[in-house]
């Protein structure tokens, strides 16, 4: 008998084995199944309820994931050998109820027990997102969640540019971009998605080119349309988060009203000269809170809106606000932290001051707060708003 065989025999006796069916039953009684195989193996399938930590990381990560050392842990590998060594490691850490699943995942599958093909990260993704995966709030699971997420950006302009860059860099799987404009040289001072060479080309094309150069793994869908009451619900379909980086009031109100109707989070940002503001409007979400109309029930009439002559913005301002929007979108997708719900974060660029203003749901808001029919979409008159 080799040293390996002798040790395995000892471990089988010391630790104890259970069949996959028994393990499954113990999970129903509060036990936890831990799949210790490598990511490449898990990519082919893993028990539906399993916690997945590969053998090499097990002792380093288990305490954070399972603080209760009295919990029944059922360790699973492919054939039931590695799981014995892994179970031994857990026992040495102080876990008192550890069993190894005999026959491993192969037998688990053969016995017809539930498994799934998890979303896993390939080698490129593991390298690319290493600094994010190492954050406990994200991890491989959160990263896979981002890969399966869809964010729609309204506008590939001053706010949409930095937002899209960071969302693509962070690994959001699908980015839709609604913009019907072409790149103008005067955009380049702030719209960092576009380059001098892209002047005259559609912004959605230019955006796709830049974003895929940064991260080829992101699917960029260009929607070269004007948002209207007729097309907005069709365009919004299938997205998890809307990032509003539009440059005019009619679009902002359409975006708000559609987000309220569809219960989508509306990650708001707006800039003017040296000032900017950001918030999250998501009355249908888990945090409640106001919609944009609770804050500003109606857009200003043309004669009260800032005139074209006054339009102007320091290019860095949308950079700051757009990246805040990207952060809020990521927090929502990952379900981590406190979103800017019910808070309007205002930045005074010249003063160098952030101020947080409290905003609440207006109990009389016909769009988000009352039980009656939600009013129909409104296509407000388009006039030159400061963009």
């Amino acid at each position: 008998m080799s040293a390996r065989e002798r040790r395995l025999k000892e471990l089988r006796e010391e630790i104890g084995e259970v069949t996959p069916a028994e393990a499954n039953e113990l999970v129903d009684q509060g036990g936890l199944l831990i799949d210790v195989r490598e990511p490449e193996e898990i990519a082919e399938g893993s028990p539906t309820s399993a916690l997945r930590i590969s053998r090499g990381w097990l002792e380093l990560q288990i305490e954070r994931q399972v603080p209760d050392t009295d919990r029944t842990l059922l360790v699973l590998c492919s054939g039931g050998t590695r799981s014995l060594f892994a179970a031994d490691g857990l026992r040495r850490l102080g876990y008192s109820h550890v069993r190894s699943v005999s026959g491993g995942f192969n037998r688990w599958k053969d016995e017809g027990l539930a498994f799934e093909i998890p979303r896993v990260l390939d080698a490129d993704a593991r390298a690319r997102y290493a600094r994010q995966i190492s954050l406990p709030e994200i991890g491989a699971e959160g990263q896979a969640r981002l890969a399966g997420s869809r964010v729609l950006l309204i506008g590939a302009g001053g706010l949409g540019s930095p937002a899209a860059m960071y969302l693509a860099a962070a690994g959001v799987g699908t980015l839709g971009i609604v913009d019907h404009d072409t790149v103008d040289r005067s955009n380049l001072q702030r719209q960092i998605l576009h380059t001098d060479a892209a002047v005259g080309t559609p912004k959605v094309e230019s955006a796709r080119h830049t974003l895929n150069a940064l991260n080829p793994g992101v699917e960029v869908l260009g929607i070269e349309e004007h948002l209207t009451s007729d097309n907005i619900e069709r365009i919004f379909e299938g997205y998890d988060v809307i990032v509003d980086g539009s440059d005019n009031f009619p679009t902002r109100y359409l975006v708000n009203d559609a987000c309220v109707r569809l219960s989508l989070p509306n990650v708001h940002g707006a800039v003017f000269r040296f000032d900017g503001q950001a918030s999250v409007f998501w009355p249908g979400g888990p945090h409640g809170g106001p919609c944009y109309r609770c804050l500003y029930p109606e857009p200003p009439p043309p004669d009260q809106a800032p005139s074209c002559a006054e339009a102007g913005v320091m290019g860095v301002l949308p950079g700051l606000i757009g990246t805040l929007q990207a952060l809020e979108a990521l927090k929502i997708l990952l379900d981590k932290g406190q979103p800017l719900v019910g808070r309007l974060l205002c930045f005074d660029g010249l003063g160098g001051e952030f101020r947080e203003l409290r905003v609440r749901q207006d109990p009389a808001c016909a769009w988000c707060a009352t039980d009656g029919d939600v009013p129909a979409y409104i296509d407000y008159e388009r006039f030159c708003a400061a963009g």
Partner: protein
Amino acid sequence: MAEVTLRIPTPLQPYANGNGELRAEAGYVDELLERIGAEHQALVQRIRTRDGQLRPYVNVFVRRTDIRELQGLETELHDGDEVIVMPSVAGG
């Protein structure tokens, strides 16, 4: 009477001779607007209508809270309060 500061964001500064803030003594928000309006009529017209209603695209915050949640234009002011006017902006 309380000594307060009215903060004016850039979109409205052209109506306040370019000022980013104005100081005044007032007991209530409407009184503050009245006093400011004596010198900066165009500014106050952008905040409320001629019949004294807040405009639906401008908000006023006292102590970081929307005055619609407090007592509206009758919200009382305390010494050192910062009154912030926040019009909606659409730039992107």
